């Protein structure tokens, strides 16, 4: 029940708070969610500094969020009635909902190896159980886990349930919303590209994992992770902001920047550097645009043709940059290949040494019928005086095998019998009930 209330409540509060910035519904939800995250981050830092409790932080955060939502609702109520948004086709909403549903179901129903090391949940558990915000290893400087901890504190549910059961319902739809608003801005006045873009995103979510190292940013594997939230909610929003930076009202954009920086910092990616990079990145864009506009005006004034165009229509500058980058990477690749070659050689020598070492420590025996007949199996003598047997022949080989095992310590840690016909010796020994040998484990192959 708590899960059913908490999820929609987060969306409602985000939507109401975000309305103050924009008239678009989707955008207001993303804006509001980022504000809630930044508030939580700031509150977490403050609580950490004064040694405050998690329950107080969660309570104050929830109350402030409700208050903020109420105030922004009152401020924007009139505006809401006046402005009508263009309707989105039902088929488009249905398709996107289906994609989100598939992804959320996958995240909720399946568990991956990345799930094992859910540090956000571990920190949230510590925080909830100790009712504190100063958690070793996961301080509130990167406080994305405070989402899990606060919601757990407010609903009384275990952080694992919040992280693995509720967070996919919040993070995955929000991620599509964030990608959606970016696509809408990127492909203005075009109908098909935005949904095609989201379709590609969906496919990439389903198939494109580079490696286990990328598990932390994989939304399917860790929908409760800060880094996944950064890549799939904040990054598309950053790109959207970069596209609209010049169009955004002055006061609004300078207010959104610290909000975005706070949300960015909470996810823990690049830490404080992430926040600084975000800020400086925008400033660079801002100044570059100003500089370009000024230059454009000057060019128009002079009425001169720009230099650097060749007959193929490709700018010389562009070609030069392309070749420079290619050269840089080619040089890097050659260097990397040489390094790889050295590594392979080292590995080869190490493997050869290992093989020699292994051969000197492990003894391999052939088992023959009564010691001299046909080959019936193999035995490995390990360094600790134990044996591993593979097959061993029929019941006539029982005596020989018994003596063989006794001579070599009398202890078999594993007897692997690949086929029924090769297990006769073992069955006979079992019947005989020898007390001077120990057979710890018998494994039968598929042939039995």
């Amino acid at each position, binding site marked *: 029940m708590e899960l059913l209330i908490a999820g929609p409540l987060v969306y409602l509060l985000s939507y109401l708070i975000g309305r103050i910035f924009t008239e678009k519904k989707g955008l207001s939800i993303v804006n509001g969610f980022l504000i809630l995250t930044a508030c939580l981050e700031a509150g977490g830092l403050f609580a950490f500094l004064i040694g405050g409790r998690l329950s107080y932080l969660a309570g104050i955060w929830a109350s402030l969020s409700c208050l903020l939502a109420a105030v922004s609702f009152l401020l924007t109520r009139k505006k809401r009635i006046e402005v009508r948004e263009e309707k989105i086709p039902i088929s488009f909403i249905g398709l996107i909902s289906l994609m989100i549903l598939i992804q959320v179901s996958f995240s909720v129903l*399946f568990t991956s190896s990345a799930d094992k090391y859910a540090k956000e949940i571990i920190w949230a558990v510590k925080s909830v159980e100790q009712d504190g915000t100063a958690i070793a290893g996961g301080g509130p400087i990167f406080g994305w886990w405070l989402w899990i901890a606060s919601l757990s504190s407010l609903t009384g549910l275990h952080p694992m349930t919040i992280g693995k059961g509720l967070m996919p319902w919040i993070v995955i739809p929000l991620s599509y919303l964030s*990608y959606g608003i970016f696509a809408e801005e990127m492909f203005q006045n075009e109908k098909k590209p935005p949904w095609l873009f989201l379709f*590609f995103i969906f496919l990439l979510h389903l198939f494109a994992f*580079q490696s286990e190292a990328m598990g932390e940013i994989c939304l399917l594997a860790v929908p409760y992770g800060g880094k996944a939230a950064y890549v799939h909610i904040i*990054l598309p929003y950053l790109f959207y902001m970069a*596209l609209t930076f010049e169009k955004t009202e002055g006061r609004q954009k300078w207010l959104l920047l610290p909000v975005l920086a706070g949300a960015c910092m909470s996810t823990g990616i690049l830490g404080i550097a992430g926040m600084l990079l975000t800020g400086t*990145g925008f400033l660079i864009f801002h100044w570059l645009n100003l500089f370009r506009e000024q230059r454009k005006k000057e060019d128009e004034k002079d009425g001169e043709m720009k230099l650097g165009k060749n007959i193929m229509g490709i700018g010389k500058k562009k070609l030069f940059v392309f070749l420079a*980058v290619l050269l840089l990477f080619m040089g890097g690749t050659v260097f990397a290949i040489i390094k790889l070659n050295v590594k392979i050689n080292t590995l080869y020598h190490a493997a050869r040494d290992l093989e020699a070492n292994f051969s000197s420590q492990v003894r391999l025996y052939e088992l023959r019928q009564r010691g001299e007949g046909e080959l019936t199996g193999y035995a490995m003598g390990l360094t600790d005086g134990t044996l591993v047997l593979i097959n061993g022949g029929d019941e006539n080989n029982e005596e020989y095998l018994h003596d063989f095992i006794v001579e070599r310590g009398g202890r078999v840690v594993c007897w692997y019998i690949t086929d029924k016909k090769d297990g006769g010796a073992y069955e006979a020994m079992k019947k005989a009930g020898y007390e001077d040998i120990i057979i710890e*484990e018998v494994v039968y192959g598929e042939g039995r």
Partner: protein
Amino acid sequence: MDFSIQLVKTAYNQYSGTGKILALFFLSLFVLFFMEKEKEKRYMFLYPSFLLLLFALEPVWKGLFAQMGKEALNRKVYFLLPVFLVISVAGIYVTKIPKGKWAKVGTLAMLAGLIAISGKGVWSQYSLSHWENGMKMPLEQKEIMDWILSKENPKALLPEELIPISNQYSSKLHTFYEIQEDGDMGKLGEEQRKVYYQMSIQHMDSQLLVGIARKYGYSYIVLKEEYHFPKTPLSLLKFEKAATYGSYSIYEDREETL
């Protein structure tokens, strides 16, 4: 329903891509470099992607990063952060090239196929979770945790696979060591390493394990019956079986009471 889930699961398990998403990412960057007409947009995609890529792949930069320590080295994968955006936007540009309707559909299908095969067969790492407890946590493991947590001294030596899940379940359950977020064991002490090793092998040195458990006041040892075969039975060392949940058994130290 179960059958269809099983079918989907088998299909996922059998899927194995090429893992060449990096090549697709490169290709997409070049597509954006040549096809995006607006300079601002072009810079927007190329600025973070190329810079981060430069840091990640270029040996000189990589070397410099490596000097800054392990944490910095891990950041080499950050060039992949804008990968979703870059590939998807480049995909849109490519679909705009063909003129005819069917040519467009063909291009779209080809791109979808490219994305699918550029991934990596990681589905085999997934398994259906148990939803009995709403935590994606197998029931038997939850019962073990609850049993130990109900005791006065909730300190237990656990098999390696139970450590991460127990850390997520409760910080009150002492597990002698924790496994780092990436499975790294670097911060473990010598005795912690010994326990980790003994719990991970089939024929453990139970005397060593019991010695360490008693030294640090750990009253419980959890073994997986179908896997662990101690060299000396734990009952001979006065650790008696107290409870069994699924394939796991909890052994309790009875030395003082006997």
